[in-house]
């Protein structure tokens, strides 16, 4: 009744992909035999070393600043760009050019942009901010221009009918209705940017990510434990905060 021939074929294909992927990734659960070592290793993480707590908190703040600045600057640039990259608002010829540029920007991972910029601009959080910003212009530009295209045409029509100029009509006819979703996308990208800035720290981009990486590489596992704890608390707090703001706005 529910299962047709094509479903069976699909199941066979999926099973084949699962096994193929396991071969390619050396997926082997018997490697967990030495699980005891892991517990012993994690034992070295405790008790936590709190001597460098103030420095760690400062670095966590730096990570937040990187993530916020990178994603906010991206929003600031992506918002007007989106109107030039949406089918219903773009001036003739702009649409394909900008959409293609945005997907090109998006296709370059932040870490690659980061590696290039760190070589050019030197170590530290500044190149990381730029890397996060560039990537997020691509992401937010695409997401927001899709919101613009899906916006209810009614208010835009009303604005044209009162004789408003083209851009005034776009702005008033579209922005208020997509605003909650724009904020949602921004907050989500902000949260992603926090994780990205941790990874960018590994390659010398500063912040708590860089500290975590250095502590790990110098076998100071009791400090690593506290770094990880700080990161977890930070992410949870931001998660609460952004959903609170989102609820207030909608």
């Amino acid at each position, binding site marked *: 009744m529910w299962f047709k021939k094509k479903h069976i074929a699909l199941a066979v294909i999926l099973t084949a992909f699962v096994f193929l992927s396991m071969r390619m990734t050396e997926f082997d659960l018997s490697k967990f035999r030495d699980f005891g070592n892991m517990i012993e290793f994690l034992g070295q993480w405790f008790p936590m070393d709190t001597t460098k707590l103030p420095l760690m908190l400062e670095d966590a703040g730096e990570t937040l600043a990187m993530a916020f600045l990178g994603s906010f600057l991206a929003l600031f640039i992506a918002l007007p760009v989106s109107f030039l990259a949406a089918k219903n608002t773009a001036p003739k010829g702009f649409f394909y050019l900008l959409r293609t540029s945005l997907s090109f920007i998006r296709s370059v991972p932040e870490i690659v942009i980061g590696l290039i910029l760190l070589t050019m601009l030197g170590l530290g959080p500044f190149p990381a901010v730029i890397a996060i910003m560039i990537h997020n212009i691509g992401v937010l530009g695409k997401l927001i221009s899709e919101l613009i295209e899906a916006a209810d045409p*009614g*208010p835009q*029509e*009303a*604005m*044209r*009918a*009162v*004789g*408003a*100029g*083209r*851009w*005034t*009509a776009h*702005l*008033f*006819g579209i922005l*208020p*209705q997509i*605003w909650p979703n724009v904020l949602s996308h921004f907050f989500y990208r902000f949260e992603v940017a926090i994780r990205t800035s941790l990874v960018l720290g590994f390659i010398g981009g500063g912040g708590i990510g860089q500290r975590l990486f250095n502590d790990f590489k110098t076998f100071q596992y009791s400090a690593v434990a506290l770094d990880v704890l700080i990161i977890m608390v930070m992410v949870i707090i931001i998660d609460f905060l952004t959903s609170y703001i989102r609820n207030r706005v909608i």
Partner: protein
Amino acid sequence: MIECKNVSVTYPGSHTKAIQAVNLTFTKGEFICVLGKSGAGKSTFIRCLNGLQMPTEGDIRLQGRKLNSLKEAELREIRRHTGMIFQHFNLIPRLTVIQNVLTGLFGSRSSFKSVTGLFTNEEKEAANAAISNVGLTGFENRRVEQLSGGQKQRVGIARALLQQPVVLLGDEPVASLDPGTANQIFTLLRNMHDDLGLLTIINVHDLQLAKKYADRVIALREGEVIFDGLPEEFGDNEYMKTYGDE
């Protein structure tokens, strides 16, 4: 005041004409209801009268000016004095009643002045007067999402009123409202029409409303004008021709 000569509209990708060879003249002071089934071309027709839809054939003259050949700025000038109300009200969400009403001034202001929201005290007073005219005093700072359908349409009417319109167009303005509210809205429109000496052209489904309020009734069927005359001349025969299955 508005003159349509042989106006036809064909939408891209469609073989049939949404409206065909419409010849009509409207003069100041007329309150006109346009009847017809869904898909008869009422909406297309009314949208031609302020250039939201351009005719693919024929000419429309507004106050002596040919619509098809107007530049963007001239078209804005026409629209500035043409109020329009809609079935789904088309208000700006998240904005308050007075903010929505003030957007009625966007036709006569620069983009900078519109976007920054720097309105003079006279403009704000005019907006408050329009709000009180439609009976929404006390609701000025409510967000429009919080209003009922009838109240939303009143905001739409106040927005049109602030344009100091010469012509008022309505595209099924009461189709989403209950009969009682629809009557109230029509009473309001009729009073406004009489006070300001407008030319009012409104699409309606409801024959009773048209008969009660209009000076002149036009019926469309498959894009063609099949009746143009006084409401009392529109009898059972005309009703069948307009709405019948044949």
